[in-house]
């Protein structure tokens, strides 16, 4: 979230590196204190506890948990589908945001509202709806229940709003003058897109992508009805974690959770790097 907020706000400041030079007044120092306190209570300390719990079995325990065939398959499936869905969201989310900002069409307001439905719907309800629409009794005769496509579908459903909602405000603020200037200076549509529009949108797209990846990796509720939780086939990591917990093996559960944390961290960091590159190219 912080990534989204800061980058979106500062998106016009191209290529400026966030230096640690302190410019804090007393007031902003207090704000920083409150931020760190809040972040500690909600994020740092709980996550720290997870990592510490994961260390219980040592490296051997860590490795043997992750190489358990069922767990390894679940991790591969979850990360793979989350990555695919994120790529999909980067394209579709940006297009949807574009349409919503730049075009006007009847029913636009309704689409605006519908986009946010996945945020509001309890995920178990989402699962039920998806099962009804794309399950064995599908009215449109599309049955993906209990297949990997179901995992992809559920991920896509719950992560749809992220890129749309991060890109939309930036696009709204984007000066059309810059585009027109580019055109009048003889730039092609492609050049304008790659050199003017995309660099401005990159931070927002990256923020949305990071959110959608992280959200997909942790998804559980919408899957329990439609993915089937079949070992080595459609079982995701959150189900594996639950299995470990049900068996009283919280250490193993923490190991899997830690791996997901590390991957999510790396992906978010990587997206940040990419985003800076693209933004600087403009």
């Amino acid at each position, binding site marked *: 979230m912080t990534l989204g907020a800061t980058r979106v706000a500062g998106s016009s400041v191209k290529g400026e590196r966030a230096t640690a030079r302190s410019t*804090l007044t007393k007031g902003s*120092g207090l704000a920083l204190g409150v931020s760190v306190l809040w972040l500690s209570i909600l994020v740092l300390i709980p996550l720290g506890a997870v990592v510490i719990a994961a260390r219980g079995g040592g490296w051997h325990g860590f490795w043997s948990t992750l190489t358990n065939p069922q767990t390894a398959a679940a991790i591969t499936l979850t990360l793979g589908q989350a990555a695919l869905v994120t790529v999909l969201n980067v394209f579709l989310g940006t297009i949807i945001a574009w349409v919503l900002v730049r075009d006007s069409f009847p029913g636009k307001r309704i689409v605006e509202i519908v986009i946010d439905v996945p945020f509001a719907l309890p995920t178990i309800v989402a699962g039920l709806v998806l099962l009804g629409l794309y399950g064995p009794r599908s009215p449109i005769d599309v049955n993906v229940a209990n297949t990997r496509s179901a995992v992809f579908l559920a991920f896509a459903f719950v992560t749809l709003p992220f890129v749309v909602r991060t890109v939309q405000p930036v696009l709204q603020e984007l000066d059309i003058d810059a585009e027109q200037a580019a055109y009048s200076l003889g730039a092609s549509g492609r050049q304008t897109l790659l050199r003017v529009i995309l660099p401005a949108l990159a931070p927002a797209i990256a923020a949305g992508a990071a959110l959608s990846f992280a959200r997909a990796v942790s998804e559980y509720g919408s899957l329990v009805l439609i993915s089937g939780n079949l070992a*080595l086939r459609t079982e995701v990591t959150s189900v594996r974690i639950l299995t470990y917990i049900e068996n009283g093996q919280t250490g193993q559960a923490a190991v899997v959770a830690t791996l997901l944390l590390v991957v999510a961290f790396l992906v978010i960091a990587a997206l940040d790097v990419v985003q800076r590159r693209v933004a600087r190219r403009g």
Partner: protein
Amino acid sequence: MRTSKWRWAGVGVVVAMGLTACAQSSTPQDSTTSASVAAPEPVTLNLVAFAVPKAANNAIQALWAKTPEGAGVTWVESYGASGDQSRAVESGLKADYVHFSLEGDVTRLVKAGLVADDWNKGPHAGIVSSSVVVFAVRPGNPKHIDSWDDLIKDGVQIVTPNPGSSGSARWNILAAWGSVIAEGGSEDDAAAYTTALFKNIVALPGSGRDATTAFLAGTGDVLLSYENEAILAKQQGEDLDYVIPDTTLRIDNPGAVLKGANPKAQQWLDFLYTPDAQAEFAKLGFRPVIDGVKVGNVEGANDPANPFPVPKKLLNINDDFGGWSAANPKFFDPDNGIITKIQVATGKSS
């Protein structure tokens, strides 16, 4: 300037740690009681249970309130998934009485020192409600699924809750295993049968209720379920039938009073073993755990007048599997359990 920034940040971390320390020492659950019903002796009991028997518990509470022992008792109740509820109590959720879907969830509290060792040594072995494993099928049983052998025929699609993540799902899988042993089969035969069974499983939803939901939404031909779950679904007007196989496993739901609970909690537990209380469980499809209960018509049962026919062979966890403490590691260990390995093997082959 630099120091001030770090000082504030440091203060933040220290305060945060202080707060977590406080949180650990206080009880996480604020018992928000609906205070004082005018009564002889206002007592509040905390009930923590799995979700299915809520309606029965509430009806029994109303009955109990009419007795001298139960008069004036107010309840603070919490219902949820059995394992989650048990873990919540283990980590501090206040409880006087717990009712879970399987023994392991009470055993967890025994290990945590919250329930006495001898909780299951009484005449009813700590079991307050009971059911059996059944096959829920599509209305009219179009695929003629009547026996365990029918389940492993080609093209039969099975739904059953995930035995990994749902403790109570394990009743179903053990019933399948036990049906082979009961016919004189060896453990190898049982493993072969269970492997064939898993090949026909198309979905392993997270819990018993999720499995029912997935089945009712059209997944599969047969749902391995509990008799009370099937009866309840029919009471709610859902479109399904159920079949009690000739050999099946008795499901035992334990109840226990916690150490240091209000003495009323024990009186409540005693009251649960009265015919009136058991009749309330029966109305919801649970089999009574004592004799002499007048079970009236049970709506939703195959034959409401004779709702709980005795199966030809009824297995139970203690005599046929050596109890949950033996069955859990043997069958469901996440690395080496027999069922875990079968799941992995069938996952690979398809």
